[in-house]
């Protein structure tokens, strides 16, 4: 099937490898990926920081660019959450019926990457191999906005050689929170350090998530503290092919 990629501005500019990995995995599974080049940003930063007018312009732009597709994938749970929940609230607050209708439609077409694989494409083994100890950080918006269950864990469980390690307080926030990380940098850092400590104590070499924003923050902290820990988006791990045919 044809799938439109909503890469997100953050992945586009800072973590392009996660975007490339999404393309690679989906193509390996026999799907066609298109990248609507008119896309920019969903407006999450503006919306969550209180800049409603600006977020509204970006929301309308998003709907205009993506409403023509039947299946859209994004490597970010929080951007998907912004579109599906943030836009709905915005449409209600600003009494924008057109935007509300657009969001309603996107509700049936936009999927976070692991959701698309597991719930729509019904694939849990994408033919990946990655012989490392990996901790999975379930991002807040994947858990509590998109209500993802264990889709990412099902996918990781089928990666050859991968050892999934459990860390303490797995479901607690990493402390990023968008502009929170700058407005309340000290609190954000305290949360980040607790998360990094839990992950390193669990013996993980790689910290994996479905949100590049959390990973940029956690990776920046790990780098500063010179921890022996890499951050990787789920798609980057799944893109490591084991060279055999994927099992559907």
């Amino acid at each position: 099937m044809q799938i439109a990629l909503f890469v997100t501005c953050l992945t586009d500019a800072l973590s392009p490898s996660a975007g490339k990995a999404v393309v690679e995995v989906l193509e390996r599974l026999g799907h066609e990926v298109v990248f609507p080049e008119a896309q920019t940003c969903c407006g999450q930063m503006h919306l969550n920081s209180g800049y409603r007018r600006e977020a509204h312009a970006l929301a309308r732009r998003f709907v205009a660019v993506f409403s023509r597709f039947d299946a859209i994938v994004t490597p970010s749970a929080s951007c998907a959450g912004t579109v599906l929940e943030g836009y709905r609230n915005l449409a209600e607050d600003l009494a924008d019926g057109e935007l509300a209708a657009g969001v309603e439609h996107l509700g049936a077409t936009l999927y976070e990457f692991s959701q698309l694989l597991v719930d729509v494409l019904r694939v849990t083994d994408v033919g990946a191999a990655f012989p490392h100890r990996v901790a999975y950080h379930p991002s807040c918006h994947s858990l509590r906005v998109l209500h993802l269950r264990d889709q990412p864990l099902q996918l990781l469980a089928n990666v050859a050689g991968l050892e999934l390690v459990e860390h303490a307080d797995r479901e607690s926030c990493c402390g990023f929170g968008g502009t929170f990380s700058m407005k309340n940098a000290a609190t954000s850092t305290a949360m980040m350090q607790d998360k990094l400590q839990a992950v390193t104590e669990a013996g993980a070499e790689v910290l994996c998530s479905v949100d590049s924003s959390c990973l940029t923050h956690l990776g920046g902290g790990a780098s500063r503290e010179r921890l022996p820990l890499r951050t990787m988006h789920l798609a980057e791990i799944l893109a490591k092919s084991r060279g055999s045919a994927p099992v559907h």
Partner: protein
Amino acid sequence: MARSFRDAAPFPKAAPVFLANPQLRANLRGATTTIRTKRDRLVAELADFESMRQQAEAIKNDALGRLGDLLAELETNVQAAGGTVHFARDAAEAREIIVALVAAQGVDEVVKVKSMTTAEIELNGALEAAGITPVETDLAELIVQLGDDLPSHIVVPAIHRNRREIRDLFLARMGEHGLAAPDGLTDSPSELAAAARAHLRDRFLRAKVAISGANFMVAESGTLAIVESEGNGRMCLTLPETLISLVGIEKVLPTNADLGVFLRLLARSATGERMNPYTSLFSGVHPGDGPQAFHLVLLDNGRSTTLADPVGRQALRCIRCAACLNVCPVYERVGGHAYGSVYPGPIGAVLAPQLDHVVSDPVSAALPFASTLCGACYAVCPVRIDIPRLLVHLRARVVEHNQETGPHLEAAAMAAAMVVLASPRRLALAERLFSALPGGALRRLAPRLPGALGAWAIARDLPPAPAASFRSWWSHHRGSQPAAASQLRPTAVLGLLGARLSRPRRATSVPPTERSGDARHKILNDLATLRRSAPVSSGVPAPLPQPARSALETFLERVAAYDASVTRVGPGEVAPAVQAALARSGARRVLVPPGLQAAWLPTAGPTCEQDPGEPAAMLERYDAAITACAVAIAESGTVVLDGTSGQGRRALSLLPDHLIVVVSADQVVDDVDQALARLRPGTPQTWISGPSATSDIELQRVQGVHGPRRLDVIAIA
């Protein structure tokens, strides 16, 4: 002099001070972890927790939708029951009313039940200024008051203190206010609770005026419901001659039946108990039982303004359980004082700015930003307040105010970001510039930069700039495809299901209902419905199936779980069981209410005296009391006394240190709703779930504070 939050610094300035206190961090982490674990276990026990949340939300929305009518109804019914109702538009008016009411009694001391609303209006300072000493009687509030401290949690105001700090405080300060702490006091929570009991006992017995808040008010009967654990609330509600209750106008519920779902939700959400030890219900004045003068002060103080905001008003559903504080990762690290508000944590961040007119001061305006929007609060809220949405809503109000009042650095940065993000070409250009920057030099420089970049780089390295953005990679490697992307006819999600798209999709979005009948859309809609119907997780696993058992068995098991003694007897065997219970406690003087069945009284052992009807404080001289009950509740292990025959006045089951309650099997109902249906509204009720207890010291439950420390339940099966 009572301290206030008036001099507080805004959150971003205050938080680092608290973050740097390792003892505070350890205390908070220990306490919130304990309470979260208990709450999750108790919530998981209920099969219908989600539907209860929805029901509670609906009741509150209904009540808020006709608040004026309900308040008028409440006023009529409180006055019909012998009470007086006062309305206060703001904190100053409320303080004035209450100080005048106390002064009119000619007293220089009042006892207080824990009340956030009195803290909201800074009542203690006003009383002190009028020469009246407010005596906080809740253990945590006492700890706060003795330490000249401020509350840091809605339910457990001294959560920031550990047992050693509390012991030191008791030893140092109790003597200045009354009975000193005993020498050699250890830091065991039960010893600390016993010290508080001894310190306050005399205050309760001599008090003429008490001040309380309330958890709920019922319009149809003029009833107030006050939920507590230690028995200090019952002391204040029953011993003094005059009771003044200050209650926010949003706390009114339409009917008595509405109380059920809230009583079930509150204790589980707040302290992780099936039911809090004591809930008191009363309506106005009850002749011969409790205060004979009752004043209800209804407080607006920003609530009606909040109600006028269609998004913001949901904060008024709050029942002050503080479950959102206990799960909040920000609260856990900085504690309540960092918020600079009587109401801290996630709910404080959405309630305080609204009550205080969000943009009017820097402390309030910073609160909506004191969150990562992680959503843990919304997931546990028993009345489903969408706190993340409210935070975003209030952020917009702060930002829009800033934009109107002149140039603002952040607004300029956000506008600049818009210039880039509004155009894919400009975004691509910005990305190329970013990739061309000397990454290593920028990384080293960043921590010294001012503003957002510098704040980021204090503890985090900047991500390395990639050689090329995704967009650039795509146009180089897939350049031929994207140009045509918009013309490509999309094959649908159902490609995977083997179906084929039979006609071109229209470019604009069409409401799904117009496309019904089309298999493609049915499937898409089903998927969407599936996702939408995914319940909001309350963060707990599904309940285990419970084996079928009788209400009596469940009741007895749950009473026993509170560390009460349980005895099952046949109809003729009550007296020996009572006698054995009295022998275990060594009681010498035993009190019985009028109308108690004579056949239940022991034939040997201590003599039982009927309530002499003296002032309630005189009942202190009895060691034990025996009473019947009105109804008992299996789900929560609760017995309810309503003052009818064989139960007596409320003080009877409070002052003697050993309480024996006789329950017959036909009085046991399954749940709170069934109990409410059996009880007559407007009666003075005491709901008892185990001996008095407190969780105010490190969130560990300790048996026995001000109420009876020993509870015997004798069940006639």
